[in-house]
């Protein structure tokens, strides 16, 4: 049956300012979700839950329409249906924000009586989502969502709402959200959250945006079409047969003639690689066989033999007509000639000095810490994934928002960052406040080995360097450098310089299985074992270094 919370997208540490809200007391987020589901005063699109205060706020806005703020201990839940901008079937559940007809005419508000007096009003159809002037389908019209128009001559018209790709797929099915769960050869798909029969890395919690639900066919990794791991032990994965939609695909973003970002939207006509090789036609399988065909990637502009980036490469590329060079990058002029778009792979080595602490509230912190207090990795400030935000270097040019380093651009109490964990929007960083010392360098390891434990022995006590100088029977030990009362040539500080034969301390220079011993001062007893307690097993936490690693990653 699932949880009521399955209908919501959860974001920790986020807050929405919302003029339309209701405040409740709730013991749990589920209880708060119930309040949202049953909200009568407005369409509840989201709710905020603070566990410490047990406060529940039902909201009419969500992150599509209102600004997100950071706030500790708050969890924002947004109703999935209101985040979708596509329709399923006739679109009766469509709750998106399209407010223009297919001809581009602005919709009339459902609550207005002019220019058209509506039959469908929010009062008459309170469950139909007739808010503002958004396209809706309160009457189950076959042609999908529609609205009354602001054109006095056109009472109503349909809206151009894209399909949610439930029954069919556009492009390569990256947005396919249907429920087909068998492969082309009829094998049943393995659940994405299962590791049997095939162990794999596509864990749903790590790819929240890929909708890896149940065992449905999906395309999370740029394949030509949706696929799944199969329940057959002998077939790890296979494509699914999802029909192509007959409706046109969503209009592509306008292509560029120059290089911006990774150049996925480059639609220019350069067809020569950086080394001068001519590009092979994408529709040709000679000289190189490949799967990047216009049929497999119909929405990626694989025209002629032009350089393209259909698969998230670093920049546009092509297969070459040179049999010895399968594929190469192309040199595409940058849209912004002042900023090189394709940095060399080399990354300068990080400085040895690291700011390990921050002064004041950390607004001036410019160190390289990039982990939060709970150990989560920081999201790069320039990235909008997994969290969209406005704390960019452009908006905060003086805040030092480089890479994914902890910063405090908004004068919070200490440095923080957005996290790479999709479920936790932001957290404070794992940084200490300076004690008036300013910069601290990474501590140097002490110059003495901590290997020896003076009070006990490990195994047979070869490493024992303590100061016990009596045998188990209470006799005093003879000095190792002395030849009286017992003369001995073999175990002396000179013959065994690493054995720690100092003074008359018990030692084990010969690796005796019974442990440390010594020559005794009793002329009648040449040597005897000493009674030194065994050390308890070493106490340590695995995987935790005492010296902070650089975590130098070159991605």
């Amino acid at each position, binding site marked *: 049956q699932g949880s009521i919370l399955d209908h919501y997208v959860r974001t920790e540490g986020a807050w929405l300012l919302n003029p339309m809200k209701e405040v409740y007391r709730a013991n749990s987020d589920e209880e708060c979700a119930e309040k949202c589901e049953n909200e009568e005063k407005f369409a509840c699109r989201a709710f905020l839950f603070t566990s410490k205060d047990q406060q529940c706020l039902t909201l009419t806005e969500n992150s599509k329409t209102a600004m997100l703020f950071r706030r500790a201990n708050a969890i924002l839940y947004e109703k999935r249906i209101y985040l979708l901008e596509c329709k399923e079937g006739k679109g009766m559940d469509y709750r998106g924000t399209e407010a223009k007809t297919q001809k581009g005419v602005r919709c009339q508000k459902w609550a207005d009586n002019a220019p058209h007096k509506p039959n469908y009003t929010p009062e008459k159809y309170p469950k139909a989502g007739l808010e503002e002037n958004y396209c809706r389908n309160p009457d189950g019209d076959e042609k999908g969502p529609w609205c009354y128009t602001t054109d006095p001559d056109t009472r109503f018209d349909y809206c151009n709402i894209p399909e949610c790709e439930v029954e069919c797929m556009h492009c390569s099915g990256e947005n396919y959200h249907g429920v087909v769960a068998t492969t082309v050869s009829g094998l049943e798909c393995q659940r994405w959250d299962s590791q049997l029969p095939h*162990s794999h890395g596509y864990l749903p919690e790590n790819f929240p945006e890929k909708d890896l639900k149940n065992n449905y066919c999906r395309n999370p*990794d740029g394949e030509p079409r949706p696929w799944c791991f199969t329940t057959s032990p002998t077939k790890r994965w296979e494509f699914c047969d999802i029909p192509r939609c007959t409706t046109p695909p969503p209009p592509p973003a306008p292509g560029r003639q120059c290089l911006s970002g990774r150049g996925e939207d480059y639609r220019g006509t350069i067809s020569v690689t950086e080394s001068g090789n001519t590009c092979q036609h994408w529709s040709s399988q000679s000289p190189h066989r490949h799967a990047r065909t216009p049929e497999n990637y119909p929405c990626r502009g694989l025209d002629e033999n032009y350089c393209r980036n259909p698969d998230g490469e670093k920049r546009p590329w092509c297969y070459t007509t040179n049999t010895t060079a399968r594929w190469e990058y192309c040199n595409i002029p940058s849209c912004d000639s002042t900023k090189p778009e394709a940095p060399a792979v080399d990354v300068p080595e990080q400085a040895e000095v690291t700011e390990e602490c921050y002064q004041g509230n950390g607004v001036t912190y410019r160190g390289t810490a990039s982990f939060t207090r709970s150990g989560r990795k920081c999201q790069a400030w320039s990235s909008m994934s997994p969290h969209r935000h406005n704390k960019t270097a452009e908006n905060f040019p003086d805040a030092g928002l480089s890479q994914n380093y902890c910063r405090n651009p908004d004068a919070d109490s200490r440095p923080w960052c957005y996290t790479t964990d999709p479920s936790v929007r932001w957290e404070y960083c794992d940084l200490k406040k300076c004690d008036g010392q300013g910069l601290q360098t990474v501590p140097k390891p002490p110059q*003495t080995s901590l290997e020896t434990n003076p009070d006990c022995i*490990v195994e047979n006590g070869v490493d024992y360097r303590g100061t016990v100088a009596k045998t188990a029977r209470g006799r005093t030990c003879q000095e190792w450098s002395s030849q009286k009362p017992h003369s001995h040539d073999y175990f002396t500080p000179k013959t065994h310089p690493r054995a720690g034969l100092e003074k008359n301390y018990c030692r084990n220079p010969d690796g005796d299985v019974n442990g440390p011993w010594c020559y005794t001062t009793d002329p009648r007893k040449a040597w005897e074992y000493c009674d030194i307690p065994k050390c308890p097993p070493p106490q*340590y936490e695995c995987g935790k270094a005492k010296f902070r690693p650089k*975590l130098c990653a*070159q991605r």
Partner: protein
Amino acid sequence: IVAGCVSHPHSWPWQISLRTSYGLHFCGGTLIHPQWVLTAAHCLEKSSRAAAYKVYLGLHREAATEPSVQIRDVEKLFKEPHRADIALLKLSRPAAINDHVIPVCLPKENSVLGGREECYVTGWGDTKGTRGSGYLKETGFPVIENKICNRPEFLNGRVKKHELCAGNIHGGTDTCQGDSGGPLVCLDQDKFVQHGITSWGLGCAQPMKPGVYVRVSNYVPWIKSVMESN
């Protein structure tokens, strides 16, 4: 390690250097318990005698001149019985655990990496002319799901299910000769867990040719049984 950086001294305290009895480094390894080291089986091809090897712990420089260095003889070798590239070394006596020598965590039995983990490799192996030769180097890159790694343009079906791939698609940084047997560790909250043992690759740091590592989680039951019965 090709490219990457010289690590902070002793920040990977589980990394060991596997050496000949004359003290020559030839492979890496990982301390997983005070008396046990995990390495690659192919590192033990030179000799089947335990006496042919020495394990150096607590070092940053390949020269092993630091006072923190501990040297241990190998008491026994254990190669995985089905010829996987994984082996255990029992040290003649336990390493002293201190700030410079700390075992790494083992993964949960048969656990999988989710594809977005931050993972790091370390070693004193070939740097292919990049900086830091002679010092313990590190580099980080993502783990690549086997399905992708086995695509024709990558390793074309060579990667077995008991192995994992990791690296940058564009190459540039990688493990290399001499790093074999060393760890691929991934941060799990605030601890490093060893998910891979450096095993093989097609060249070093080549585009579309990520490194291949033994998938440690598949061998946790074997590791535990060998340690318990020895």
